């Protein structure tokens, strides 16, 4: 046991590389997606985010005595759309079921969900990790209603234990929620954390392309539970899995898997056994903490929801939904990569930066692909970094970026001026044209003005002009700088250079 020195004797976490050298992980993901329907799953209350607590409710989503659910047809359609995009079979007949348990944020103390008759089953999603393809099996996609949201006041953790009291907001109760459950994913080895992340990322892109959800992890409209188990390499059996809840960013998905592998390896190395339990991901430490044990599992007493009739989507309807599916992200990426002539590496960089859609829209608005890519990956990525926001959250639209690029192409802006125009747009000063006008940023094109500035520069620097006249053309750069300075940077450097050469060589 040469590695024993490298790991704590108390069974604390084992460094990832050491853990993965001796253990084979199996991961699985359960992803909850709030659908972007106009109204809730079983009533007419609107689906909104950020409204005053308990203001978007009605007798049905509050579960008041006597109220009854009525299925939102659009939610069924969206779920079928997701199922089809994930290559699933669509049930021709299925039922909702009641999942019974007591919790204050559940208005009826049961959740209307699907149990053994999910709407979509048995599909797959291809994900790409560093050029390697993984096929993630999709076990099921089912539809349910979201619960309310508890806010635990007092105490340090924000969890119910130690809180002074709790408040419940039922605005979220009854929002249609789709659960996408993968099959266990073995064989990913050291790439397990990245595969988990890539899966969620790919699923998010897919859901966005399907226009069924705004898929904002930070607002909770896409929520992830990550199952992780490890077993000694070569073992015929998988290990005991834990379920890590509240993993609410792509980065956290990756960190949660990594940290669970490290923790479980420590437990096994110390001769312990992994307990099947729910764990909570801690954003600050990047580790998980123990939640309730699944070994004393709740009995949810599922039974078919008697207040609803079975859902039986007709084959024609499913066919119509299938025919109307938009181009899916994987196909679109292949097409765009070819159209833009990018290498795999370029494409990966674009995706990792979250810039693919932005570039595509910029190109659609008329910009050349390489220009569009440069602007988003360089200048704008830097701005997003400085501001600490996602690229897509910058207050500049792809159409505006295309306008700026167009102005450069037309010689009306140079790069320096263009950056100032973008400054203005980001500062909320209006459209690129408005910023150009307001800040007076147009390139100086008046031949008289340029000519005068060039003459002045030559007159002030006769030695440089002489060198140019002697054929040392490179010296022109110094004069270009003088002219640019004189015109406040608003001249086109190429035109200026041409003018200088012309004067010195012919004059």
């Amino acid at each position, binding site marked *: 046991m040469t590695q024993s020195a490298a790991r704590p004797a108390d069974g604390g976490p084992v460094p990832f590389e050491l853990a993965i050298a001796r253990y084979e992980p199996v991961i699985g993901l359960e992803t909850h997606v709030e659908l972007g329907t106009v109204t809730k799953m079983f009533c007419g209350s609107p689906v909104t985010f950020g409204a005053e607590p308990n203001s978007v409710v009605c007798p049905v989503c509050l579960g008041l*005595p*006597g109220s*009854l659910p009525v299925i939102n047809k659009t939610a069924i359609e969206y779920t079928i759309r997701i199922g089809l995009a994930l290559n699933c079979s669509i049930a021709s007949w299925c039922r909702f079921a009641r999942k019974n348990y007591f919790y204050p944020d559940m208005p*009826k103390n049961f959740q209307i969900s699907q149990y053994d008759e999910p709407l979509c089953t048995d599909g797959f999603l291809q994900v790409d990790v560093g050029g390697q393809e993984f096929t993630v099996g999709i076990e099921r996609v089912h539809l349910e209603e979201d619960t309310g949201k508890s806010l635990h006041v007092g105490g340090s953790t924000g969890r119910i234990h130690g809180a002074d009291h709790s408040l*419940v907001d039922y605005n979220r109760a009854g929002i249609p929620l789709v659960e996408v459950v993968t099959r266990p994913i073995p064989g990913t080895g050291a790439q397990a954390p990245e595969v988990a992340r890539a899966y969620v990322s790919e699923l998010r892109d897919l859901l966005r392309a399907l226009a069924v959800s705004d898929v904002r992890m930070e607002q909770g409209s896409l929520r992830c539970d990550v199952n992780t188990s490890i077993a000694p390499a070569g073992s015929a059996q998988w290990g005991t899995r834990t379920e890590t809840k509240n993993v609410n960013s792509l980065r956290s998905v990756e960190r949660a898997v990594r940290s669970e592998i490290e923790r479980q390896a420590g437990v096994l190395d110390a001769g312990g056994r992994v307990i099947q339990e729910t764990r909570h991901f801690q954003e600050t430490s990047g580790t998980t903490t123990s939640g309730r044990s699944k070994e004393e599992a709740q009995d949810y*007493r599922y039974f078919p929801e*008697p*207040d*609803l*009739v079975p859902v039986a989507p007709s084959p024609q309807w499913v066919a119509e939904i299938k025919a109307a599916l938009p181009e899916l992200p994987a196909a679109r990426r292949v097409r765009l990569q070819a159209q833009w002539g990018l290498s795999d590496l370029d494409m990966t960089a674009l995706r990792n930066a979250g810039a693919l859609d932005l570039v595509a829209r910029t190109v659609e608005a008329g910009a050349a692909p390489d220009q569009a890519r440069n602007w988003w990956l360089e200048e704008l990525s830097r701005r997003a970094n400085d501001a600490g926001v996602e690229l897509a959250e910058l207050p500049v639209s792809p159409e505006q970026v295309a306008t700026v690029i167009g102005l450069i192409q037309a010689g009306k802006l140079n790069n320096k001026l263009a950056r100032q125009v973008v400054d203005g747009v980001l500062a909320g000063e209006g459209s690129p044209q408005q910023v150009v006008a307001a800040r007076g940023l147009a390139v100086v094109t008046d031949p008289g003005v340029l000519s005068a500035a060039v003459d002045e520069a030559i007159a002030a620097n006769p030695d440089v002009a002489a060198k140019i006249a002697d054929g040392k053309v490179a010296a022109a750069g110094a004069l270009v700088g003088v002219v640019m300075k004189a015109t406040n940077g608003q001249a086109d450097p190429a035109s200026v250079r041409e003018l200088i050469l012309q004067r010195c060589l012919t004059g």
Partner: protein
Amino acid sequence: MAAATELLMLTAAQMAAAVADGQVSAVELTRAHLDRIEATDVKLHAFLHVSAESALAAARVVDDRRAAGEPLGPLAGVPVALKDVFTTADMPTTCGSAILAGWQPPYDATVTRRLREAGVVILGKTNMDEFAMGSSTENSAFGPSRNPWDLSRVPGGSSGGSAAAVAAYQAPLGIGTDTGGSIRQPASVCGLVGVKPTYGGSSRFGLVAFASSLDTPGPLGRTVLDAALLHAAISGHDPYDSTSLDAPVPGVVAAARNADVAGLRVGVVAELSGEGYAPGVLTRFNETVELLESLGAKVTEVSCPHFSYALPVYYLIAPSECSSNLARFDAMRYGLRIGDDGEASAEDVMSMTRAAGFGAEVKRRIMLGTYALSSGYYDAYYGKAQQVRTLIIRDFDAAFEQVDVLVSPTTPTTAFPIGERADDPMAMYLADLCTIPSDLAGNAAMSVPCGLAPEDGLPVGFQIMAPVLADDRLYRVGAAVEAALDTRRGQPFLSQARGLAGVNETAEAQR
């Protein structure tokens, strides 16, 4: 204007005609019934809440509309007693339970709304077994109602309050709900017409659920025609209830006016007879079958072998659904809250509230249902019960291939004394032996009075069962029985009533 007593004795159809003709105002009619409640409900306890003000206001609207020459519906201005299981935006809704004492719903049930839209005047909310679980109203947290025929006896249940009110002339019409017989059994023991429409024929929206796959709102009346008018008023597709049938309402009113059974095939259910049935009940039942035969019906005996399993099947399915439906009463959002001292956890408050707020029968059924649905027992109990339920439906299907309607006694005995079965759940459950099959199958069924049992002089009910959405057949047969018996008797059925049911007697006593 007619004397108050004469007004009270009119049928609902006659009251509506009198209002429409201007012989009496809806306000006068309403006031007469409110006075009657005032005078009799101390003894009867049919109502949990009387809303004189809103009732008179609703009556005034009808009178104003008539004065303005606007068209009135067939029951406009007629009062009704509404079971306290339907939500009402202007009255509390308690379901006979301490856990909902004083709860004021923010919305009207569809049945409530349809009554209002029809110009029917809601007098108040009637007593019931807690959450409609029981056959006597003794399970009400607010004390039992009494049978107007004999105040020491139960009015049946769970819609016992509505039945007692109609039998005691406090209201010409009542609304009940039938889950295992909760309309028909009280109708039977109070000498009324009570109908469980086809499941899905009347909306459950705003009906506080006991067992979702069984609960059915329906009418109680003193005549078959009155029940038909109320049946029509509350029925029809409701987009707020997914299990509501999107089908035309069967022509029940026309059927009630067409008391012709010549050539009709009537099947006597072999399994719903014999041991355990009171002799007087069987005597009157058999007489009524003969009566139908004399009116031209073709009577045969039909076997429905799985009906003998109906009771155990019901006591698995209904408690299973109730254990889930009643989970929402947890003190968090509305209703009773016990033990919230700032220290107790939400879970503790839920437990304490449910321990204090539910009665013994409700707890018994929640426990039965929780057990039947639990992992490892589901297949043997809930799952098996659903399979047998299917067999019962097939028995009905097979029977209705041979006959147009099935008949049986409504309940094995007449009204039993208060307290007699209170500590014996099995004896209480047997009261619904004959009514449960139609609840499980979802078809339509009626109880119509067929005389008094010789041994105790109390009403006996005759049950008629018809296929899904053939509710009109009930009314055709019921009207024939009613007309023939009235003719033979020379007077309406209720005029034989003693005690509070005899409105004249009370009126005389008041003089």
